[in-house]
C-alpha cells in the first residue's frame, strides 16, 4: 500500500518484539490517537481548572473570614500531603459511590460523574493545591509600598489588584507555576488507574492485545510525553520572556 507501512509490517514479521502496529494498522492507530486526544483534553481542562481554583484559593486564604481560611488550609493539607494516585482512587471509588446516577433507558444506571469526570476533578484539585501556595507567594512578593503608591493615587482595590499586584505577582511566580503545571500534565497518566481511556491506558491495552508492540509503544509514550511537556514549557517560557521587564526580577 505504501512503502512505510510495508516496511513496518515486514519488520514486525522479522523481529517479533518490534511490532510498530500503530504505523500500519488503522484500528491500532485510532486507539493511540484517541488516547492522545483524551490526554490532551484532560491536561487542558486540569491546567485551566487548577489555575482558576488555585487563584480562588489564594484569594480565600487572605479572606476576612476565619472559616474560609481554615477551609483552604485544610484543603491544602490534604491535597499536598497525599499521593495523587490515592486521591484519584478515593474520588472514584469512595465518593463515586455516593454520587447520584440516572437511567436513560430504564434499565442501566449511569453515574452522573464518569471516571473521566472524577479524574478531571481530582487532578484539578491536586494541581490547584500547589497553585494556591505559588500564587500566594507571588502576591506576598509585591511590596506594600508599591500598592500604597497606587492607593495614594486614588486607585480602587480592584484596580490595584488587577493592574499592579497581579501582574507583578505573576512575574514572580511563573517559574514555579510552570513546573507545577508540567507535573500536572504528567500526572494525568495516573488516571489510567480508574480506566480513563487516555494515552497510557490505550497503550497498555494495545500491548495487552499485541504483546509484540510493547517496546515500540513504550517508546512512543516517552516521545509523546516529551513532546506534550515540551510544548507546554515552551509556551510558558515564551510568556515569561514576553513579560520580562528590564531591570526587574531575574
Amino acid at each position, binding site marked *: 500500500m505504501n512503502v512505510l507501512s510495508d516496511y513496518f509490517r515486514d519488520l514486525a514479521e522479522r523481529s517479533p518484539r518490534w511490532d510498530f502496529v500503530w504505523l500500519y494498522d488503522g484500528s491500532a492507530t485510532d486507539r493511540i490517537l484517541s488516547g492522545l486526544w483524551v490526554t490532551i483534553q484532560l491536561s487542558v481542562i486540569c491546567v485551566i481548572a487548577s489555575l482558576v481554583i488555585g487563584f480562588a484559593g489564594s484569594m480565600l486564604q487572605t479572606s476576612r473570614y476565619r472559616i474560609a481560611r481554615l477551609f483552604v488550609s485544610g484543603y491544602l493539607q490534604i491535597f499536598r500531603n497525599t499521593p495523587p494516585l490515592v486521591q484519584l482512587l478515593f474520588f472514584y471509588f469512595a465518593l463515586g459511590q455516593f454520587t447520584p446516577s440516572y437511567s436513560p433507558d430504564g434499565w442501566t444506571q449511569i453515574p452522573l460523574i464518569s471516571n473521566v469526570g472524577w479524574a478531571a476533578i481530582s487532578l484539578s484539585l491536586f494541581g490547584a493545591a500547589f497553585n494556591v501556595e505559588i500564587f500566594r507567594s507571588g502576591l506576598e512578593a509585591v511590596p506594600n*509600598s508599591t500598592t500604597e*503608591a497606587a492607593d495614594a493615587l486614588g486607585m480602587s482595590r480592584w484596580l490595584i489588584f488587577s*493592574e499592579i499586584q497581579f501582574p507583578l505577582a505573576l512575574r514572580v511566580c511563573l517559574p514555579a507555576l510552570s513546573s507545577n503545571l508540567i507535573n500536572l500534565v504528567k500526572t494525568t497518566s495516573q488516571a489510567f488507574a480508574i480506566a480513563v481511556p487516555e494515552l497510557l491506558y490505550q497503550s497498555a491495552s494495545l500491548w495487552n492485545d499485541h504483546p509484540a508492540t510493547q517496546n515500540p509503544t513504550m517508546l512512543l509514550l516517552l516521545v509523546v510525553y516529551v513532546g506534550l511537556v515540551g510544548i507546554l514549557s515552551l509556551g510558558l517560557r515564551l510568556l515569561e520572556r514576553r513579560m520580562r*521587564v528590564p*531591570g526587574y526580577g531575574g
Partner: protein
Amino acid sequence: MWSPTQPIVAMKDVKKSYGDFDVLKGISMDIMKGEVVCIIGPSGSGKSTLIRCINALNDIQHGSITVEGQEVHDPGLDKRILRRKVGMVFQQYNLFPHKTALQNIMMAPVKVLKEPRAEVEERARALLKKVRLEGKENSYPGELSGGQQQRVAIARSLAMRPDIMLFDEVTAALDPETVKEVLVTIKELAADGMTCILVTHEMGFAKEVADKVYFTDRGLIVEEGHPSEIFTNPKDPRTKAFLSQIL
C-alpha cells in the same frame, strides 16, 4: 463651603497612637493655598505619620483634619476622591516596576479619572519634559537612576492635577548629585503656586523655598515660623540642639 481664603489643610489637635505608643500627641497646623511648608525634626518624631494622615494613608484617633473644608477622617468619605486632590511622593519612589515611565504617569488619569487616553498622553509627555526627562518615556523604572525615578514619581502625582502635594523625605535615598535635580523640580513646582507639604532633612532647601517651617519632636510641634526665624534664631532648646547637630 470652603473658599481659598480659608486654610486648604487644617489640622486640629490631631492625636494618633500605635497601641499604647503615642506618635502624634496633639498636632495643629493651618496651611493656606499656595504655601510651601517644611516639616523638620529628629528621626522617629512622627513626621511621616503626620504627613500620611493628610491623605488618610494613616488614620487618627483624635482631632480633625480637613482638606478644602472636607473632613478627611469622616468614615463616610470616599478616600479615593480625597486622594485625587492630594498627591504624594515617597522616599523610595514606589514606581510600578512593570510599567514604563510614560505608563506610570498615565495609569491613574486613564483608569481612575477615565480621561481620554490621547489627552492624558499629551499631558504625560509635557510633564516628563517639565521634570527634564524627555526621551525617557519608554524606559522602565529599573532602567532609571534614583533621581530620575523620583522625578517620574513626581510627574505621576502631578498627572492627577492635585491641589496639594505631599513629599516625604523624597531625596533621602538619593546621592548628593541627584538630590539637586529633584529639589529643582520641587522648587519649580512651588514657584508655580502648588501647595506643598514636605518632610525634609534638606535644611538649605527649606530655608530657601519654605514659607513656614514646623519643627516636630516626639509627636508635638515644638516650634513653627518663617525659616529666617527658625534657622537663625530658634527659641526652643530642642530646636537649637537639633539644628546645631544638623547644620
